[in-house]
């Protein structure tokens, strides 16, 4: 069994108020390393055996149609062993 991972992130030009809230909470806890934080979503999709190229193409399609909103978000698809 393999896992196909889809990461969805807001496009850089879209304001991410959740990420900003996290960024401003970090220094309050003494973590001063962050210049910026962006928050996204991760989908872990399990498939039987090794993912085929057809399956990966379908995941790409699903990511574009449902998992992300291309108006405000970008996504990446990869296989995790």
């Amino acid at each position: 069994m393999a896992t196909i991972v889809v990461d969805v992130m807001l496009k850089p030009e879209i304001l991410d108020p959740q990420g900003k809230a996290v960024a401003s909470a970090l220094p309050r806890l003494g973590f001063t390393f962050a210049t910026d934080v962006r928050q996204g979503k991760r989908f872990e999709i399990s498939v039987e055996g090794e993912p085929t190229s057809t399956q990966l193409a379908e995941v790409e399609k699903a990511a574009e149609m449902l998992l992300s909103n291309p108006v405000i978000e970008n996504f990446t698809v990869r296989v995790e062993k």
Partner: protein
Amino acid sequence: MKIGVVTFPGTLDDRDAARAIRYAGGEAIELWHDEADLKSVDAVILPGGFSYGDYLRCGAISRFSPVMESLIAAAQGGMPLLGICNGFQVLAEAHLIPGALTRNQHLHFLCTDQKIRIENNNTAWTNSFTEGQEIVIPLKNGEGSYQCDDETLKMLEGEGRIIARYVGENPNGSRNLIAGISNERGNIVGLMPHPEHAVDALTGPGVDGLGFFTSVLKALVSGGNK
């Protein structure tokens, strides 16, 4: 005139929308998300709420429900369609109108009586108002910040498709104070604040919202947007 009101799992404002239709003199017809049948309605309202629990993104799952298949085709053919709040989010997810609704800039859920200005009264849902008319209706949302790219914003401004704007301080971070927009033809309107909660002085801030519902009845009689 029959105006359909769609109920998704998690919809909240379907009853208020149906009541507003009746107050305006129309007949409200219940439509169920899982049935493609539009029951011969003349126009449809997608009401507010938290359809499918706002899972994934607001409106993202509702957008693929059976009723939406029929609705998208009918609205593209010219049938008046109004999306309020969560309904606006569904319209955006269905790409019936451009842009997207994102988390309020200040991250808080907002519930307030909001002043808005009607910027375009040439749509099927705003013809009862005068251009520039200021009205007060409730605004209640967590993800009401309207966002789009610069090109789209320029197009919306240029074509007069921003049908209503917030007056005063920007309540949620929407670009250019956008409270509502329409499609090119003016039959599809997305609106973040809630006119259906302002049709009875007993339960709302006034009756300013009624105009949206009388507008569509007028448009249906005339066969155009006016």
